[in-house]
């Protein structure tokens, strides 16, 4: 099995380097969480977490992202089976789920700004917008990466370079899913319970 390109990609130096990069990104999010934990009660007289968040929307976003994490995993499985079309299919599925998630998030942000609760209003809203917004920014980067990756796979086929790209993207997407689970638990669930 060891000369399978996907396995070689996962044991490569590039994957280890990207793994360390992902952990540094975790530290960035940890700092944003620490800021949110400190500022979430500074509502500056404005709206608080309990009033603002609709829980069903947050749950659907979580389920979407979780299933997109599964489809990206299935893309890796098909890479192990060296089946190019299946890789493209599952990557497309991940792409669609990712865009839906992003659409829901942008819609919620516009709604908040529309009712006057933009990031300028209070420390809580600033930290909410920047924490969830940075995660949204990473989703956008992931979507662009998927487009570039699909072109590479279509044009160049299953080379070690495209396998490394796919494996690194898969790690990036799982990392985004884990960060979203913490956002879901800390920001939405604990916010709803009036922490």
């Amino acid at each position, binding site marked *: 099995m060891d000369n399978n390109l996907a396995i070689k990609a996962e044991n490569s130096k590039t994957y280890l380097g990207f793994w360390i990069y992902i952990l540094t990104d975790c530290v960035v999010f940890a700092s944003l969480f620490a800021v949110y934990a*400190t500022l979430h009660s500074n509502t500056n007289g404005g709206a608080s977490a309990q009033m603002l968040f609709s829980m069903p929307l947050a749950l659907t976003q979580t389920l979407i992202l979780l299933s997109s994490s599964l489809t990206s995993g299935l893309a890796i499985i098909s890479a192990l089976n060296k089946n190019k079309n299946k890789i493209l299919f599952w990557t497309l599925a991940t792409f669609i789920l990712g865009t839906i998630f992003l659409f829901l998030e942008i819609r919620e942000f516009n709604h908040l700004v529309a009712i006057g609760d933009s990031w*300028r209003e209070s420390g809580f809203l600033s930290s909410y917008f920047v924490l969830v917004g940075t995660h949204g920014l990473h989703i956008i980067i992931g979507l662009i990466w998927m487009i570039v990756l699909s072109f590479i796979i279509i044009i160049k086929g299953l080379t070690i370079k495209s396998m490394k790209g796919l494996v690194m993207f898969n790690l990036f997407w799982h990392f985004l899913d884990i960060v979203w689970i913490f956002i879901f638990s800390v920001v939405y669930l604990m916010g709803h319970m009036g922490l």
Partner: protein
Amino acid sequence: MIEANLLGLLNIDSFRHDLIQNIGVAIMSLSVIFVILGLTYFKKWRWLFKEWLSSLDHKKIGIMYIVVAVLMLSKAGFDALIMRTQQALSVGNHHGIVSSSHYQQIFSSHGTTMIFFAAMGLMFGIINLAVPLMIGTRDVAFPWLNSVSFWLFAAGMILLNTSLAIGDFSGAGWLAYPPLSELQYSPTVGVDYWIWSLQIAGVGSLLSGINFIVTILTKRAKGMNLMKMPMFVWSILGSMTLVTFAFPVLTATLALLALDRLIGTHFFTSGGGGNPMMYVNLIWAWGHPEVYILILPAFGIFSEIVATFSRKKLFGYKSMVWAIWAIVILSFTVWLHHFFTMGAGADVNGFFGIMTMIIAIPTGVKIFNWLFTMFRGRITFSAPMIWFIGFILLFSIGGVAGVILAVPPADFQLHNSLFLVAHFHTMIVSGVLFGYFAGIVYWFPKFFGIRLNEKLGKIAAYLWILGFIVAFVPLYALGIMGATRRMDHYSASMGWQPLFIVAGVGVLIIGSGLLAIVAQVAYSIYKHLDYRDKTGDPWDGRTLEWSIPSPAPSYNFSVLPTIKKPDDFWDLKQTNRKVELNYSDISMPKNSYLGLFISAGAFSFGFGVVWHIFWLSIIGLILIFSSIIIRTLDENTEYIITKESLIRDDMKFYGEAK
């Protein structure tokens, strides 16, 4: 919020400055023009671009880091000179040579330039030069990423220096505490310059950190397991772990401050729900690991130097490794000692005070281990050893001051006083700078093929040690006399002026020490014929880098070595074990100009955001992302060096060495 006109906030009076700043701009632009004229006159542009600016060779990148760092060291040295003259003259009704707002820009740029571009620059320069050679490999794990990291570092440096010519710089100190650094109290672009030059250089440092962790973990020579690595490489692994763990906190904090200033969020603003204390907490959660990032490589260099010049094995290898990792972990548990006086409760202050003292134990262990390496050795006192003696004498004083400052009530008295300024300068000048100067003098022959003149080297070291004492002992005394840091004027009744004048003389001596270093290098290059190092092993070294010719060829090792014992090269020489070399073709990475494009992109992004010229920032981002995508599509990035040319080089080297 988005300005309509194309130039954002940039207008004619961002070019108007006072006299001293105009002199600085004149010196900077004249030296740039002088270099351009020199290059065109000697027709060296092609050579510069082909050999250096697009090179992926870790040795060339290391040399470029050191050149930039020495330039930044001398620029920030000028800042120090202006500050010392200001503080020596500005008493009673005299107001010295600069206005107070300009004085605040000077000490902010002095601190930022020294830490981020002089010290970090020297560190990454020495790491790039020495680490691949000491672990017996041909290149770092990601050569292209290495070039990109250097060029991001250079882009940050250029952005910082344009603030001298265009607009002003931050006046809020090297860590820009809010609310002073918020829009309400610093409306000019100064703080933006500070944020974005640090953000760009910070990303470069983070990528280097990742690059060298993977290099050390995966590219060591066969047989060199972790416990057989040279101690310098251990200290770099520790330092790079700190870089990768701590720099993201800096990136996040700077981004939040930038958002506060750009889109009106309320993270650290005094009103509107913000909490300025959170910035202080986050910036020091990065700040303290940062100073250990700088000191660990200096400890590593001293471990190598003391072992080599005492001709003895490093004493207590295991406890040295334990000490490094104790420092790495503990450095994340002490950051509150930078704001004991903010008003936290006694339990919090007490806990962090005790943790700060505990971190002094591994440092003390390392010093005792070096001293016992000298025990029963044959010590030759060449220039690196003089730097080491100066380090031990002065660093221990800084350590004692550190233990005093670790006790919260003692820190209530001495926080933000000149005693604290003298303490951290002792740790950084006599610890970090002495270590890196010793490292440069020690490895200079390996990369330039010529040994440095011994006499001038020792003079430089003595000047720095003496200059340091004359410049900073008065500051310890001034701290006890109640003088605070960052003062541009004080009343005559305090009796401080004589001490400030003595400190000014001290800085002049340090300046002459820096000139002595430059003279040492210039003189050795001038007389390079009789300073040539033919054997590749001028100091009878113990580690792998001395087993190859100097200047080290682009491929480092013609045949990758295998290691049996720690200090294998020394053991090989003692038992004059013969090593049979079986040659084969090797592939080395091709040059790439993409690093330069990313640097230009990062600079225009930063400059655009600082001056709200947002179309320029978008162009910068496009430049960066397109360079990355071009690189991933690029296939032929390697070139082959044939077996025959390797054999020919080795024959020439061994023939000459006999």
